[in-house]
């Protein structure tokens, strides 16, 4: 029997609002421990939460970007569990009435396009951060654990997908494209290295073709796309091996061990987590009127999916459209400016996703840091099109523009890169080569036609590679055959 995986992804997104979800403390990263704290986020006796309006506006924006419906009213719940970095020993979260429900994200990879259902997007608060001091930095070997509450109370959005994914690779692409939407809507800096996005995966397997879902295992602790993909692969392998060996899969939560490359059980009893959710009595239900939601909708930027379609309508290939649509906003602006200045969209995209991206990466620069403008790119593509410079020379011209030597025509002139297609000049160069190599001419005329290649090469050499090879061929053929 063949087994197929069924995967759902939960993504936690930290919002980078100015203040925390339920108090006025600053949301920050990297400040000294326990400096952005107050009675509320430390859960001192008597303190009360007050919701952050900006965070609510952002989750609505994100929900709309994910094609979700916005519940007309939404309620906070308390999720009860004891942990040292959870100051109240309950997390203010949402349960049966989240802010956003029933959306989707259209995902496109090299191999295929697919739609992933979004079950819900809800608002909650982050916990503090436990730092295990001692050998290995792991909880079971730690001499002591220190807690930094700076992160406690940071607005956290959880995006729960439907179990629509069928491979680890698809899960990775989904997560990447979801990240692009998060970044695009501006609700979070979406910086992976800061843990702004964290992933949990629900993985089960079932006999191929079956309609029923298998026993679900939740895999936690992935904070990069790579580890998400690897963890899911490892879990699918583990479950498949068990089933093939005739063992059953147990419903549980497992941790991804990055170094070991395996998922590890957490020694919790089956079905033991009971969070005793109940309505948060310190917060009134939220009511969202239509005008508020529509105002949020009107501030939505163009998103990667629709943008991809627009690029394709401009003539770009699906692959090129996909790459450009999810690239740096400044690169996309460069594209639009170049097209506006007359560049052919296909050419502009070709340069941007290829040479320009590579060049910026080499110098670890962002598009904003270099003087390359849309009109420059338009001029460059025009010069190539008119064969004023060769493709090779164009790369050099581009480097010159990027390093601030001026416009493409200025760089080409200054660096002497303009193609020589002037017939008189080329005929002179051909004459010079023929005079210098009489034996080669002789061999050609006696039927050794491949010698022409050598002679073309010599012409390119005396013109420092600037000769238009096609014109050289024509002139040379005419001279040798004539």
């Amino acid at each position, binding site marked *: 029997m063949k087994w197929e995986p069924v995967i759902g992804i939960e993504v936690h997104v930290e919002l980078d609002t100015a203040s925390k979800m339920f108090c006025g403390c600053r949301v920050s990263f990297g400040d000294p421990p326990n400096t952005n704290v107050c009675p509320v986020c430390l859960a001192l*006796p008597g*303190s009360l939460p007050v919701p952050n309006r900006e965070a609510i506006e952002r989750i609505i924006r994100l929900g709309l970007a994910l094609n979700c419906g916005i519940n007309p009213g939404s309620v906070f719940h308390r999720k009860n569990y*004891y942990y040292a970095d959870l100051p109240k020993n309950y997390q203010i979260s949402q349960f049966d009435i989240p802010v956003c429900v029933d959306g989707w994200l259209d995902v496109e990879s090299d191999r295929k396009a697919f739609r992933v259902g979004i079950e819900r997007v809800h608002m909650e608060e982050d916990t503090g951060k436990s730092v295990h001091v001692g050998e290995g930095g792991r909880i079971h070997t730690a001499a002591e654990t220190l807690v930094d509450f700076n992160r406690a109370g940071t607005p956290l959005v959880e995006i729960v997908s439907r179990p629509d994914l069928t491979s680890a690779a698809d899960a990775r692409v989904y997560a990447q494209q979801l990240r692009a939407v998060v970044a695009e809507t501006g609700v979070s800096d979406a910086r992976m290295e800061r843990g702004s996005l964290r992933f949990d995966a629900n993985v089960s397997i079932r006999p191929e073709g079956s309609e029923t879902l298998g026993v679900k295992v939740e895999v936690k602790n992935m904070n990069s796309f790579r580890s998400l993909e690897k963890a899911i692969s490892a879990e699918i392998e583990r479950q498949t091996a068990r089933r093939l060996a005739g063992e059953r899969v147990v419903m549980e939560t497992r941790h991804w061990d990055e170094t070991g490359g395996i998922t590890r059980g957490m020694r919790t009893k089956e079905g033991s987590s009971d969070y*005793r959710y*109940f309505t948060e009595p310190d*917060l009134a239900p939220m009511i969202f009127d239509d005008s508020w939601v529509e105002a949020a909708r009107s501030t939505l930027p163009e998103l990667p999916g629709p943008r991809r379609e627009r690029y394709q309508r401009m003539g770009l290939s699906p692959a090129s459209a996909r790459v450009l649509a999810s690239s740096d906003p400044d690169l996309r602006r460069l594209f639009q400016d170049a097209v506006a200045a007359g560049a052919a969209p296909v050419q502009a995209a070709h340069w941007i996703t290829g040479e320009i991206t590579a060049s910026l990466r080499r110098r670890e620069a962002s598009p904003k840091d270099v003087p390359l403008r849309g009109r420059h790119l338009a001029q460059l593509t025009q010069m190539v099109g008119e064969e004023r410079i060769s493709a090779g020379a164009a790369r050099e011209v581009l480097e010159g523009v990027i390093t601030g030597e001026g416009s493409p025509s200025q760089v080409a002139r200054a660096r002497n890169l303009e193609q020589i297609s002037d017939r008189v000049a080329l005929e002179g160069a051909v004459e010079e080569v023929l005079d210098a190599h009489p034996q080669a001419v002789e061999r050609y005329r006696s039927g050794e036609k491949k010698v022409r290649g050598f002679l073309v090469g010599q012409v390119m050499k005396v013109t420092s590679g600037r000769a238009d090879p096609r014109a050289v061929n024509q002139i040379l053929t005419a001279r040798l055959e004539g």
Partner: protein
Amino acid sequence: MPSPLLSVVAAGAALRAGETTSVELLASVLSRAEMTESELHCYLNLDREGAMEAARRADEQMARGEERGPLHGIPVAVKDNMCTRGLETTCSSQILAGYHPPYDATAVTRLRQAGAVIVGKTNLDEFAMGSSTENSAYGPTRNPWDTERVPGGSSGGSAAAVATGSAMAALGSDTGGSIRQPAALCGVVGMKPTYGLVSRYGLVAFASSLDQIGPLTRTVADGALVLQAVAGHDPADATSYAGPVPDFSAGLQRGVDGLRVGVVKELDGDGYQAEVSSATDDMLGRLASSGAEVEEVSLPLFDVALSAYYLIAPAECSANLARFDGMRYGLSIKKATAAATMAATRVEGFGPEVIRRILLGTYALSAGYFDAFYGQAQKVRSLLQEEFRNAYQQVDVLVSPTSPTTAFRLGERTQDPLSMYRSDICTIPSNLSGHPAISVPIGLDSKGLPIGFQVMAPALGERVMLTVAAEVERIAGFCALPPPALAPPTEVPL
């Protein structure tokens, strides 16, 4: 020296007339405390120095003509479940022994802004869970009318302090009757305002959807003044009422002519002390004589309100008290792991009643039991609110005894939690509905113990409630009586 049994109104008038000073008023109250504390134990922490400094400042301000209103210079006590900056706040629990909050509760801030002098922190049932103040980890408070009896609870310290004159007014908190029931048992006025009218910020939460801060005073007019000082919107409490606050003192003399007074049928009969019932009936007759239209109103769900309350309040408390884990503040019994530290701290730090309620609440919220317990209780609560709304279509206020009995003996109910819980049978419905209610003393039973009369009103109906309460007070003429169990104060006030 002025009498410590002056009303806030009278003391304020004397202050403004230059006949006394805040320092003198405080000295009077403190000397009363010196005399009574060893026996009554109203206070967990008398802040003599801090209070004296505040009193001096109040006098200086007054001398400069900076008048801050009716509470300026008045010595007021605060229940020890409200945070006071730098002043130990324990909630009568071992788990918060030595805890000094870094901030003032909003109600405390407002008292200070009004010029009030905070005398100290009063005793309570641990985390406000109880009806006798016997659940204090630091020993019970005794009733000034009979020191063998409880003062009620959980604001027993505040009620006894006001009754005996070791404070001129006090703040309490009321989750199921914790202001009104001790007020009734100690012969003072106790008011639970509409939910949301007074900010809960800084009130250590017991049951968030029920908790409300309110005044304990010797007169209805004093209660109106204290409420005025602490009421109003607070951006730090998301459940705080954002509308305008009326003048609570206006209309106190209006009388009850033409007002419709509904007597709650369910709050009488079995379990009610005969003298309490007859005193209530007597008051109803006299209200009718004053022009009120008295009629009987039935609210059948009052019979199950107690059960709903004992699911909702413990459920909320089980989460609210989860933060006391020995990790950040208060008691911490260090063990090898965080989980073991939390468990040991909580077992050691909480008293038996608190643990009982946490267990009850945890159970009521657990998977498989939620619908039958917490879910069902919430339904009862909604229906009860509807029943109240319907009743208030017919009448302006509802009335009943505040407590089915007068003060009981220490230890009498400690072995039987259910009989203790039933002490709050008359007061709990107003917490579940979020409506205001007040207890006014109307007389003494044959043992010389005070009887309280409760007036309930619809949401934000404090003014009509206070009008009726003032008339009840006038008719009863009770407030001129000093508590007899201890040596009488230097002079009889009013």
